[in-house]
């Protein structure tokens, strides 16, 4: 009896650690995969990636619900611009719109800066992030918002048939359905991107172009288009991250800057350009945070990921799965 109880307790603890780590890591992963393929393929540093999260979140709010905004929009009489089409509509529209925004960014922001020093890219995108943040603040007001969870994913996952039983059996009794949705959605989206990059012609040219862009062009492939698409996909992932993170964590225009730093760290630790690396790093960060909390060192949870990142980068400067790039 007693060993059984202990075993169940241990299983429960591990299961909780895993699920908490997964859900904490999911958003990092969504952001980091996008950042990583852009940085790996286009060699472009996008400090405005966090702003894309915010765009996704606000856009999702507007499409899914009928929010009323403060800020200048309200002053000009457009405070109620919500469409109220529901969350699923947002899930379709947001990635598309943010994809287009990403494509425009590649064309009009990134491309003119490919030949400039990479520090200029940082400065430029940092500036653009500031401007976007401010535009949101001015237009929508500074108040924090959240997106309502869609009715089909509200409440605790323990109430969901089958899944709930499984969770209970594992000793997990506090996890919202939405988190499970995030984990699944992340897995699906990252899976799609992975397949796209690994198993399609498009992905083939992107991977080849990452290594030797000139050679790919010599083979007659125009890379500027895959580049547009890569930037678009990276942006769309950030947008989706905002959309699925919106019901979980309150966001305001400044939030983009807050999540940018861990996202970048995930990329660098995972290895630039590596989707697997981003996933592994994101999960590690999630697990480290969850583990530190679970084992009573919660005050070190934030410091923890930075410290781990520092150690990884000192031991392996190119990141876990990264190729050494001329720095």
């Amino acid at each position, binding site marked *: 009896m007693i060993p059984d109880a202990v075993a169940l307790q241990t299983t*429960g603890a591990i299961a*909780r650690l895993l*699920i*908490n780590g997964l*859900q*904490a890591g999911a*958003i990092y992963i969504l952001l980091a995969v996008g950042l990583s393929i852009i940085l790996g393929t286009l060699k472009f540093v996008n400090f405005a990636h966090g702003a894309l999260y915010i765009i996704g979140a606000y856009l999702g709010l507007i499409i899914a619900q009928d929010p009323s905004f*403060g800020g200048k929009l309200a002053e000009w009489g457009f405070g109620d611009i919500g469409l109220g089409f529901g969350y699923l509509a947002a899930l379709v529209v947001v990635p598309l719109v943010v994809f287009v925004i990403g494509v425009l960014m590649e064309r009009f922001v990134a491309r003119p800066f490919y030949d400039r020093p990479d520090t200029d890219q940082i400065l430029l995108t940092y500036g653009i992030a500031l401007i976007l943040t401010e535009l949101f*603040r001015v237009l929508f*007001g*500074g*108040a*924090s*918002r*959240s997106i*309502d*969870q869609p009715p089909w994913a*509200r*409440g*605790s*996952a*323990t*109430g969901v048939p089958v899944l709930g039983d499984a969770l209970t059996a594992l*000793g*997990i*009794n*506090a*996890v*919202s*359905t*939405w*988190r499970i949705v995030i984990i699944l959605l992340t897995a699906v989206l990252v899976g799609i991107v992975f397949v796209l990059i690994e198993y399609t012609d498009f992905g083939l040219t992107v991977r080849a172009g990452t290594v030797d862009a000139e050679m790919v062009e010599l083979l007659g492939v125009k890379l500027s288009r895959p580049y547009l698409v890569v930037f678009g996909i990276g942006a769309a992932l950030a947008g989706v991250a905002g959309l699925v993170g919106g*019901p*979980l*964590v*309150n966001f*305001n225009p*400044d939030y983009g800057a*807050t999540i940018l730093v861990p996202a970048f760290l995930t990329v660098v630790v995972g290895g630039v350009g590596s989707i697997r690396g981003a996933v592994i790093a994101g999960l590690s960060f999630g697990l480290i*945070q*969850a583990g530190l*909390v*679970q084992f*009573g060192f*919660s*005050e*070190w*949870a*934030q410091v923890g990921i930075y410290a781990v990142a520092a150690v990884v980068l000192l031991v392996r400067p190119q990141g876990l799965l990264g190729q050494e790039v001329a720095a």
Partner: protein
Amino acid sequence: MAVVTGPATGRGGGGGDYPSLGNFPIEGDAAVFGFNVPTTGPYSSEGEDELRAYELAAKHLNEGGGWVDSQFDDLSGDGVLDYQIDYVEGDTATDPSQATNSANQMVDRDGVIMFSGGSSSATAIAQQQVAQDSKVLYMCCLTHSNETTGVECRRYGFREMFNAYTTGQALAPVVAEEYGEDNSFYQLYADYSWGQTQQESMNQFLTEIAGWEQVDSVPTPLGTDDYSSFLSEAANSGADVLILNHYGLDGATSLQQAVDAGLKDSMTLLVPLYNRPMAEAAGDAISGVFGTAAWDSQIDNEASNQFTEVFQEEYDRIPSGPAQLAYAQTLQYAAAVERAGTFYPPEVIRQLEDYEYDNIGMGAETMRACDHQAIRDVPVVRGLPGEEQEQGSYFEIVNVTSRDDLWYGCDEGPAAECELGPYGDE
């Protein structure tokens, strides 16, 4: 300070001549107040509401109306002493540095004789520092931290708001009555001074007053925006009650996540302190959850009703708790000036210290001399369901815990650590 001296005479000086100190004497015909609130950043909606109240206070001081006519006998409605009241506004962005800069600007450039504001303890404490160093009075608005009138207390700062310590005292009897005495509780607290004292206070008073038992108390790092790991540990603890000691928007986030994780079904949730942006952000999640609030328009007494009325008249909206604080603090200062007969800060301070009043809708109060903390009642509220919420109305008043059951002596609790510093005329 104290080096700058001069034969300057305060006009309207009630017979005495005072040396110049800080921004005293006032130049010109208008006394300038500074209203330093967050107009950008996540707390801007609260800041804007405070600003409305400040502007209303200035208007009533100059033209009469509101409490100036009815509650504050010291005030004439025709300026303060012989001065019209003018004001400048600043943006703290809920950032202590920005708050300090903005306060310095008011003191240095605009020559304010008093400034007020603050929507977080860090900004309030920073401004109080400016006040002490520049010898210009600061009337704290919304700040709930013990430090404001504890270790960071200043002679030039006064706080009307209650603090974290008192919140536990106020909540304990109410929840004991509601949920019975045989409960165990689990606490999550934001790991900084406010959260720590809040957590200690909850532990102390829920144990002492309600007879509950603490299972565990776990700090969540500042800047945490995903509490899921913490919440699942809490759910797993077997406790009956979960207390979320998170301030403002963090509170909204943790509460919402707790509700999403299904914790509301298995546990009773408590949040120690409500404010409007938090309630707005949390939405339906606050439904049925107990907490305390600075003030609420539902508090039914003459002063409260009157304030709600004039505010609504002016702005067509229900005033928030911080708005009441802002309005009251401004008038409180002006009344003290009238009583002192001068704007000379040390005299005004002496008028405020140990002042007894019952005119701002919260019952009888004392502005204690030892730590500049108002000793007053604390409203305990319960969140309304989402569909019953409307703009300005998010919770119902359950109880107003009397000040006789609350507070601590000058040699206990936070007050023991308070050293107010000099008046500036010693």
